[in-house]
């Protein structure tokens, strides 16, 4: 997983990218891509069916098959469930990890408030207040 970013750039491991897309919530995750959280689906893809490598996905190993039609990811098939570690039943309630390729500037998304880890610096707090003001504008 450490080098997943490089793999996505190479374009040779499309299925490895898709290994990170939640299977249980594939449609919802794809909506996330469309809204700009990540733009894997917008990359130029060559039509075909691609097998992924066996990848460690935090809670086990998975292997997927990605189907690309008309340059777009149209299907992801999970054909090796992580059933070799006795914890595979959790996969039904945890979506598979996916790569956040592109975070979005705070001011370019209209939000009411922002959730994030705690900070203490006043300077940072002021900077954030400005960001919040922009976000709420």
């Amino acid at each position, binding site marked *: 997983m450490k080098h997943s970013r490089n793999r996505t750039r190479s374009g040779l491991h499309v299925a490895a990218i898709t290994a990170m897309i939640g299977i249980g919530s594939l449609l919802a995750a794809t909506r996330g891509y469309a809204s700009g959280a990540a733009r894997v689906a917008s990359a130029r893809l060559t039509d075909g069916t691609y097998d992924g490598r066996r990848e460690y996905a935090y809670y086990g190993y998975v292997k997927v098959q990605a189907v690309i039609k008309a340059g777009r990811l149209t299907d992801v098939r999970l054909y090796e469930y992580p059933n070799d570690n006795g914890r595979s039943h959790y996969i039904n309630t945890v979506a*598979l990890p996916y790569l956040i390729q592109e975070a979005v500037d705070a001011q370019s998304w209209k939000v009411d408030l922002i959730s994030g880890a705690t900070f203490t610096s006043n300077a*940072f707090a002021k900077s954030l207040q400005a960001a919040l003001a922009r976000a709420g504008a």
Partner: protein
Amino acid sequence: MRRTELIMGMPITVVIPDRERQDSLPGTVKFPTTESAALAVFDYFRGIDEQFSPYKPESETCRIDCGELAPGSASPEMREVLFLSEETQKLTGGYFDVWFQGRFDPSGLVKGWAITHAAQILEDDGFISFCIEAGGDIEVRGANEEAKPWVIGLRSPFDPEKLTHRLLLQNRGIATSGTYIRGEHIYNPRTGERANEIASLSVIGPNVFEADRLATAVFAMGASGIEFMARLPEFDACMIGWDDVATFTSGFAGHLVP
């Protein structure tokens, strides 16, 4: 109406949609305007700071820490926090502990607890729609200014100016634990080591108290924490690893802005 004040070393923001009154209650109301309601919330947080701050020698937290005050003789509020701390410790299999290396610090629980109590102050006065945010943890009630679900952004653990996701929330609490600003400030009480296996963990729960206490404890579990969250029916969570990889519990994606 939107107000932000710096209290307890962090910005606290109250947002209340400008409506005449959001609910009709019999009798008189304490806060005739949204502004006066927000000021009451800020006053409440200032009181909490005096009582629970680990940096103020006169606070109950410091007096318990140095042994000057027996926990059993503490205020009802502190005893409630102590009770909830113990409960959280059991709930998370020891991953949450207000006593770390002999020092007493209930901060991991007080913030969410205080936000939820502050929400009660507004609710008791007839407000049904508002948001209260303290240091990135948020209680979300009712609907926003446009009478739609509140839109909450998730800050990227790698860049405070960026967001990774947008969520629609109604009558829920959300809390995020991470390591990027304060340094690695969450410890695994079981090992005494810094918990830094993952970059951030955001938890959506029935209220911000429940979300916050779980976010703090489950963050310390590292990468396996997301599995723990997946087993809790009332909660959804998003974990972000140092490699930019996000993992959701299955319900989390349902909150994403389409």
